């Protein structure tokens, strides 16, 4: 049997097909391709598979390991559910771009060396930019451009880091390193751009809510989680990640609390959840890496579910601001129920997937004696329930009667939501199969009575805090400034001022030019005009004479 195709490549070819096909043929590819990719994922053996030569280096096209397969599995599953959710509603370009995006994320999973990692990384950036643009509004085009610029910068950092690393160590292998040299710092910075680490966290909440109702479902899954995998492979136990992750966790909570746009609330909570994973990678123990991987797996499912639920609302009403929504549970009971399951999962409520995966990370902080971090994570768990667990369903589906009576989800969107709701509950009730796929053996039972009681107290009293403080959380028609103000406003102002200064200089030159102009043009006409010395055709003899003179002058100077 010929060597199997790397799953990412298989899916990328399929994405091209989706772009060309129409009607039911396209639908068939959208739905069958992820299944084929999933089976290819499970055929990638451990260790380095296919290799090729590129730029004088051996490129490892497919390298398998349990954690790589785990991420590729959820990426393929996500492609299927996302395809099911969107195939009847998304434009052709978006379906093709989203599939290519998924293909690139799967490619990252199996990249055996830094060069192929980088190539897939860039394909991911381009494809996801197209997905943002498919939002097809002026705001989407502008946000997509900002998104692209940010990822070009991230890619440039990553590439410079990889090149410097290759020169310094002579190796482009993917192996654990620490941020201890300029090269490794640049690689780390390039990866951190994609997890939306500070100070560039804003790109995520800027771009995702501007995509189409279906596009955001794909966007929520791939870029950040592919970067989480890259961090697991390259920087496990890098201490700086604990600080970065903690910042992301609380940044996500605070900004989501202030936010009015329902899908932007969910976008901020991606940063928050990925913060948990980044923190865990910073801890770096086996339990922590298991926690990061398991949480990424569960997170993709419930976050996509939340974006599906919000996507149906946007699809049916064309609205996504909390101030305009409310009371939708009356006519959208299924969408509301699925949204609530996603919201309980993200909050880590017992019996949902967040509980069985996120508590692994707390467990890791506990067993490593990181007291401070443990309590911060507990406070953050309460905060997640506050900003996403209750806030999202409350303001969209309950709150007040907005008077809107939209229909519930179309059948395919409902099917995708039911599938992911089922998985949220399945992983919550029966996490053992997921635990078995984790990179290290798991010796952890989340369902001890004390543990369940601890989280019930923590979460239910957070709920109490939410409803008691509702008057403080009244939604307003506002956005919240972020670090991106510096490049969206300050830099733009600086640019305008610089242009103004240039204008002034040019005007000055103009004035001087006018007064000396006549003199200058006269001189120019004399020398460069029709009969001027510089435009006359010279006989070859004269040229030869001049050359001889110049050359002998040069020789003379040389010997002096």
């Amino acid at each position, binding site marked *: 049997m010929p060597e199997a195709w790397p799953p990412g490549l298989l899916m990328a070819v399929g994405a091209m097909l989706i772009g060309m096909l129409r009607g039911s043929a396209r639908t068939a590819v959208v739905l069958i391709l992820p299944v084929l990719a999933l089976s290819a994922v499970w055929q990638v053996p451990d260790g380095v598979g296919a290799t090729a030569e590129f730029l004088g280096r051996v490129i490892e096209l497919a390298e398998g390991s349990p954690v790589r397969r785990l991420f590729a599995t959820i990426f393929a599953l996500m492609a299927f559910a996302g395809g099911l959710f969107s195939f009847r509603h998304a434009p052709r370009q978006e379906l093709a771009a989203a599939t290519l995006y998924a293909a690139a994320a799967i490619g990252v999973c199996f990249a055996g060396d830094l060069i192929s990692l980088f190539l897939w990384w860039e394909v991911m950036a381009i494809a996801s930019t197209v997905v943002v643009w498919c939002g097809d509004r002026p705001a989407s085009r502008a946000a997509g451009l900002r998104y692209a610029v940010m990822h070009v910068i991230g890619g440039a950092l990553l590439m410079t880091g990889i090149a410097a690393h290759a020169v310094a160590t002579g190796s482009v292998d993917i192996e654990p390193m620490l941020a201890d040299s300029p090269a490794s710092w640049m690689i780390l910075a390039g990866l951190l751009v994609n997890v939306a680490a500070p100070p560039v966290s804003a790109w995520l909440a800027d771009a995702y809510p501007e995509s189409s109702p279906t596009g955001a479902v794909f966007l929520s899954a791939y870029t950040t989680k592919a970067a989480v995998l890259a961090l697991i492979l390259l920087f496990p136990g890098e201490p700086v990640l604990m600080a970065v992750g903690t910042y992301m966790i609380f940044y996500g909570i605070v900004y989501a609390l*202030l936010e009015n746009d329902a899908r932007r609330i969910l976008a901020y909570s991606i940063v928050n959840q990925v913060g948990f994973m980044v923190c865990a990678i910073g801890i770096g123990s086996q339990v922590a890496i298991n926690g990061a991987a398991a949480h990424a797996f569960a997170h993709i499912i419930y976050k996509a579910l939340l974006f599906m639920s919000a996507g149906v609302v946007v699809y049916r009403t064309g609205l996504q601001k909390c101030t305009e929504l409310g009371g939708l549970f009356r006519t959208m009971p299924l969408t509301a129920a699925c949204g609530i399951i996603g919201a309980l999962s993200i909050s880590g409520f017992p019996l949902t997937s967040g509980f069985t995966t996120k508590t692994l990370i707390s467990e890791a902080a506990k067993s490593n004696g990181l007291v401070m971090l443990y309590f911060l994570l507990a406070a953050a768990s309460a905060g997640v329930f506050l900003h996403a667990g209750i806030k999202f369903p409350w303001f969209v589906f309950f*709150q007040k*009667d907005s008077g809107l009576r939209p229909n519930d989800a179309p059948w395919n969107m409902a099917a995708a939501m039911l599938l992911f709701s089922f998985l949220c509950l399945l992983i919550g009730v029966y996490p053992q199969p997921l635990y078995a796929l984790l990179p290290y053996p798991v010796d952890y039972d989340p369902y001890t009575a004390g543990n369940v*009681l*601890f989280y019930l107290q923590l979460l239910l009293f957070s709920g*109490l*805090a939410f409803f*008691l403080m509702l008057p403080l959380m009244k939604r307003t*028609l506002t956005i919240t*400034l972020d670090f991106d103000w510096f490049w969206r406003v300050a830099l733009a102002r600086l640019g305008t001022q610089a242009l103004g200064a240039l204008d002034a200089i040019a005007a000055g030159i103009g004035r001087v030019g006018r007064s000396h102009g006549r003199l200058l043009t006269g001189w120019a006409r004399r020398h460069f005009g029709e009969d001027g010395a510089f435009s006359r055709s010279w006989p070859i003899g004269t040229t030869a004479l001049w050359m001889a003179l110049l050359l002998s002058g040069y020789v003379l100077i040389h010997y002096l």
Partner: protein
Amino acid sequence: MADFRIGDMNGVRDGDHWLVRPRTIRRLWAGFVVLLALTVFAQAVVPIKSYFGIDGWLSFAAAFGFLSCVFMVLLAKALGALLKRKDDYYDA
């Protein structure tokens, strides 16, 4: 004093959906308070394993969750006062 109505359910009449009738909301609150009390008192029967001393105290998680949320909401309010802008800020 916190009033025990959920949010601002404007225009709610008894003829509206059963879930938003004042009676249902009163019952939901009553049920919620009972549930909260149960989770605290259950600690007498089911001990929560303590790792750092303080986390084994009676109702520690309840108080910690509640106070963390109050703190985070107030922090968000304070930051909001500084950083909030009209939502067409970048379009202007």
